[in-house]
């Protein structure tokens, strides 16, 4: 890469466009195309660079001195990371989107049709449009390196590959593998890419350019190198090499998609349609279908919301969370108090970073069970080949346990996950301040206000909340809770460390329930009150899954543990009154000893192995309505449960619990699985409109006094017609 500048003097480049960052040198008959988009960390494909590539393809065809080409990236650890999402977000009509796709298809068709061979020399991420470019090259070489990742992740933004990917991928790696890649958007690592035939060879990064040029020469001279053929087993032949088998594959794929998306996400189905069209009516019809569907999806609500969440998450990553600029202290050792489910969960993500973890609990048996839980999380990653045996050993070795505070003195951060009791929290806080004089004290409480905990502190500027969600290794959100005393550098350190752990971090103000549990509370309460009134458990869950939550409220309570929900109930009711008063059903169910899955008794029955086995009909006897069940419409259930959640979110914004509608959206989507296709509560509010919502809430409030009173801010917005987000689809 650096040698190019030397070459510039000796051999002037054939093409050099500094505006888009493309250079072409001709070296011994091989055109070396280097893409290095100026001013950005990764290369993306946009409408400015496309004509430059088109021009280069023409030149390669015309110049008799050139007989082959190599396509490289000038970025250190990424190749081409996909299409420019800003450009996609600006598309206004389906026709514009379709034209964008057509443009990309034509460019790559031109590349694929070149008589002279082009070799893709890939190191780092080749994603989306980037991988589509590679697929159009005659030969693909990738580096055998952890940074090398190939994927078509368009579905994650509610889109499909739009530059021929739906046609070229199945013809490169086979139908089933291609559908799996496109429908999940999953990352393919170097070794796997070679195995499935996505690339032809793997090389060490240091020889990538040299090998690519040698291959290009051989191909150009017609000395065909031995190309690795895709493995083609008997099942593949049965399923993929005939129309009947393929029909079966498509049918199964559609069923799987529908089971997973509940019909909320149109993109995966569109991808299947485009692939299938290519097989039934030929590639050019397939391409036409791909462009048409791509165009429609770019302006679809779902894609707009997913793109919004993408931008919001990206923006959040650059937000230190502190009101003034403050330096984050790097955390090299973290102390964790409590080796229980949450403590071990936090440890399981901490050991995956270069942090030493010191876990304290009262007994060695408790430490052992925490150690084991961490090992189980890592073991799963090892089994899935996400980490190597060596990494597994190293990660596990970072964890150590103690029944005293030895080894805490050097911790920069101590996170407590002990019993939810203020006196216990005060005690451990004092102990930590004595044992770890430099540490920040973070509480993982989900119910106790941080200010109450900080009362026992001699240095409240170093006290805050780090509210992880369970299971920690799976849940992407972290709520960092600050009190008026928390210093900016304490906040910045917690936010920075949370990001190091791979979490999406929102900074929220202290208050009962913070943000996520506060908006969850009225939703769960009203769900319980529906049961009080005679709704059936499965109907309630089904309605809200249909709405788009990953699980319904009864299932959620069973999974989280009803005892935990029960603990927060009185605190929330005391703070907020009628609208947070727990349902009679919930209280009686807890009293009956049903604490959920962990006790194998909850709203549902569980067999001995913990497998769920239908609704526990006995619960109905505990409800005020008794065994008489009545039918509620999905819409009725939605209004009675989701609207109070939205209403509470608005109160949180108004009170400054969340700093912005963006944080409120992210917190709900990543913390409780609020339907991503709705963009989050505030985006959903904008979709419904404040006026409509106020009208619906008022109606409910007449029926159930005190429980649905619209938030003042919401009422004001209903009058003024203001929105929480400026324009639909615009970057946050």
């Amino acid at each position, binding site marked *: 890469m650096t040698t190019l500048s030397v070459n510039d003097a000796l051999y002037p480049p054939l093409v050099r466009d500094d505006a888009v960052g493309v250079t072409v040198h001709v070296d011994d008959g091989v055109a070396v195309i280097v893409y290095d988009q100026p001013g950005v960390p990764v290369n993306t494909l946009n409408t400015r660079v496309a004509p430059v590539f088109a021009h280069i393809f023409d030149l390669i065809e015309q110049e008799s001195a050139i007989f082959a080409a190599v396509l490289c990236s000038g970025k250190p650890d990424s190749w081409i990371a996909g299409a420019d999402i800003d450009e996609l977000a600006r598309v206004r009509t389906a026709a514009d989107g379709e034209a964008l796709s057509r443009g990309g298809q034509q460019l790559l068709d031109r590349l694929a049709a070149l008589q002279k061979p082009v070799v893709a020399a890939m190191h780092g991420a080749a994603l989306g449009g980037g991988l589509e470019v590679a697929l159009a090259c005659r030969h693909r070489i990738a580096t055998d390196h952890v940074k090398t990742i190939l994927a078509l992740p368009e579905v994650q933004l509610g889109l499909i590959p739009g530059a021929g990917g739906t046609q070229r991928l199945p013809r490169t790696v086979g139908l089933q593998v291609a559908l799996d890649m496109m429908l999940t958007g999953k990352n393919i690592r170097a070794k796997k890419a070679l195995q499935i035939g996505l690339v032809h060879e793997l090389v060490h990064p240091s020889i990538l350019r040299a090998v690519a040029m040698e291959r290009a020469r051989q191909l150009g001279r017609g000395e065909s190198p031995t190309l690795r053929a895709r493995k083609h087993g008997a099942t593949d032949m049965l399923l993929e090499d005939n129309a009947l088998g393929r029909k079966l594959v498509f049918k199964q794929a559609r069923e799987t998609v529908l089971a997973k998306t509940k019909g909320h996400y149109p993109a995966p189905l569109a991808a299947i349609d485009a692939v299938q069209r290519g097989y039934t009516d030929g590639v050019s019809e397939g391409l036409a279908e791909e462009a048409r569907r791509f165009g429609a999806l770019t302006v679809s609500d779902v894609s707009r919301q997913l793109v919004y969440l993408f931008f919001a998450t990206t923006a959040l990553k650059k937000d230190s969370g502190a009101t003034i600029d403050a330096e984050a202290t790097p955390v090299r*050792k973290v102390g964790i108090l409590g080796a229980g489910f949450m403590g071990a969960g936090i440890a399981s993500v901490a050991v995956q970073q*270069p942090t*030493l973890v*010191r876990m304290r609990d009262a007994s*060695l*048996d408790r*430490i*052992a*069970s925490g*150690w*084991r839980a961490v*090992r189980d999380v890592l073991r799963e990653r090892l089994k899935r080949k996400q980490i190597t045996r060596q990494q597994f*050993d*190293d*990660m596990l*070795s*970072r964890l*150590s*346990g*103690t029944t005293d505070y*030895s*080894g805490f*003195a*050097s911790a920069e951060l101590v996170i407590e996950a002990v019993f939810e009791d203020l006196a216990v929290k005060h005690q451990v806080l004092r102990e930590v301040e004595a044992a770890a004089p430099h540490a920040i004290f973070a509480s993982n409480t989900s119910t106790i206000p941080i200010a109450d905990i900080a009362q026992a502190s001699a240095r409240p500027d170093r006290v805050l909340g780090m509210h992880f969600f369970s299971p920690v290794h799976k849940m992407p959100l972290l709520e960092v809770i600050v009190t008026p005393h928390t210093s900016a550098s304490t906040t910045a350190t917690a936010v920075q460390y949370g990001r190091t752990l791979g979490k999406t971090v929102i900074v929220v103000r202290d208050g009962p329930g913070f943000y996520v549990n506060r908006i969850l509370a009225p939703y769960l309460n009203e769900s319980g009150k529906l049961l009080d009134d005679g709704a059936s458990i499965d109907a309630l869950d089904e309605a809200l899954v249909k709405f788009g939550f990953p699980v319904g409220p009864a299932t959620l309570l069973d999974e989280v543990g009803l005892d935990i929900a029960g603990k927060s109930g009185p605190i929330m009711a005391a703070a907020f009154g009628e609208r947070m008063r727990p349902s009679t059903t919930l209280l009686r169910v807890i009293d009956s000893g049903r604490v959920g899955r962990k006790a194998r008794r909850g709203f549902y029955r569980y067999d001995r192995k913990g497998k769920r086995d239908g609704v526990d009909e006995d619960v109905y006897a505990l409800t005020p309505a008794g065994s008489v069940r009545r039918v509620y419409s999905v819409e009725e259930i939605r209004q009675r449960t989701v609207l109070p959640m939205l209403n509470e979110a608005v109160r949180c914004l108004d009170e400054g619990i969340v700093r912005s509608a963006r944080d409120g959206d992210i917190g709900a989507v990543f913390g409780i699985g609020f339907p991503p296709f709705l963009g989050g509560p505030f985006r959903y509010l904008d979709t419904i409109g404040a006026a409509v919502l106020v009208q619906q809430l008022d109606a409910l409030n007449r029926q159930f006094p005190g429980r649905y009173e619209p938030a003042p801010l919401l009422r004001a917005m209903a009058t003024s017609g203001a929105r929480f987000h400026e324009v639909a689809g615009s970057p946050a």
Partner: protein
Amino acid sequence: MPTFGHGRRVAIIAGVRTPFARSGTALKDYTAIDLGRFAVAELVQRTNLDGTAVDVLVFGTVVQSVMAPNIAREVALLPHFPRTLQAYTVGRACASANQAITDAADQIALGHADVAIAGGAESLTQVPILHSRGMSDLLVAASKAKSMTQRLAILARVRPRDFVPITPAIAEPSTGESMGQSADKMAKLNGIPREAQDRFALASHQKAAVGTADGRLAAEIVPVPLPPSYETMLAADNGIRADSTYEQLAALRPVFDKQYGSVTAGNASPLTDGASAVLLMSEERAHALGYTPLAFIRSYAYAAVDPAEQLLQAPVLAAPVALQRAGLTLSDIDLVEMHEAFAAQVLSNIQGLASPAWAARAGFSHATGDIDPERLNVMGGSLSIGHPFGATGGRIVTTLCNELVRRGKQFGMLTVCAAGGMGHAMIVERA
């Protein structure tokens, strides 16, 4: 005046070890490297050490892994350290961890290092089993064969007796005498009665049981999670028998010389798995980093005897030299830790230290002195706690220093006998 260090005093900051477990029991699924990593990882955590501050890691082991002969480097590749931490493995039989500690101390004294980790690890469960000579010759020949026919022809020469594997025995290559036979011989030569041996072993178990119960031994142990279920942690040595009686020990049959011998499974140290690690620093660096040393190394010595004579008697030659280098006499020593390979060996060593004849062999005109039983192995020793060959030295140094601190005493001496007729002694002092 300390004679060791030439002005750069070497501080012992802390030591930890895994529990010691009879081989084939609780720790059988861990390799020596695993055990070494447990000990060193905990040492770093417990002492709040910054891994980047460590200059060298030295580890001792006796039965080396064929797959990873430099166990020290494997341990040094823990994520607690930068990958640039250089490390090497040393071997001096049962004094291997001591060799690691004195090597590291030498590096600090020389000014080559300021912070060092030294220790050792041993798995006597996971020992390499060798092919017979005949089998290895054939396998090597086959691997060099040029064709499949040739290879098959060579492999066809394998005879049933070639399949008999060779397990490494604890026997002297020079004399063919096993360690236990040597101890039995020493008992006879020095007139150590069976009863004295059994009573000594019994006391070892009783003192170790007290040290475990009152937390003194537990304080130096890293709890290790136990496979396969990992539901519990082993936090104490599993060979200590709090309830054993003299009668039980006396009832055991001699193992080596079944007719006239006195060494039994009860008065010999058991085969053991375990690891230990000690943190050493130059006095200045310890001060700069804010560490309060447990003790300083004042002197040490190594010695050897003819292995054919009294294989485990060399500590008797090393101790007076170490004392002389320390400028001390045995009467100055507040606490003594003697490695207990066999009760017969400890009692022979004690006898030798009191003997002018043995002193003369070390070049001294007076006997080294009498060991006060009240100051000897106050929390038991290898007979009860166990003896993972490469790790024992780290345990002894740690226990000696911790106990000196607890008792507020000044000087400690340790001795270790080792195969090959070798012996080691070290003098440590507080502040």
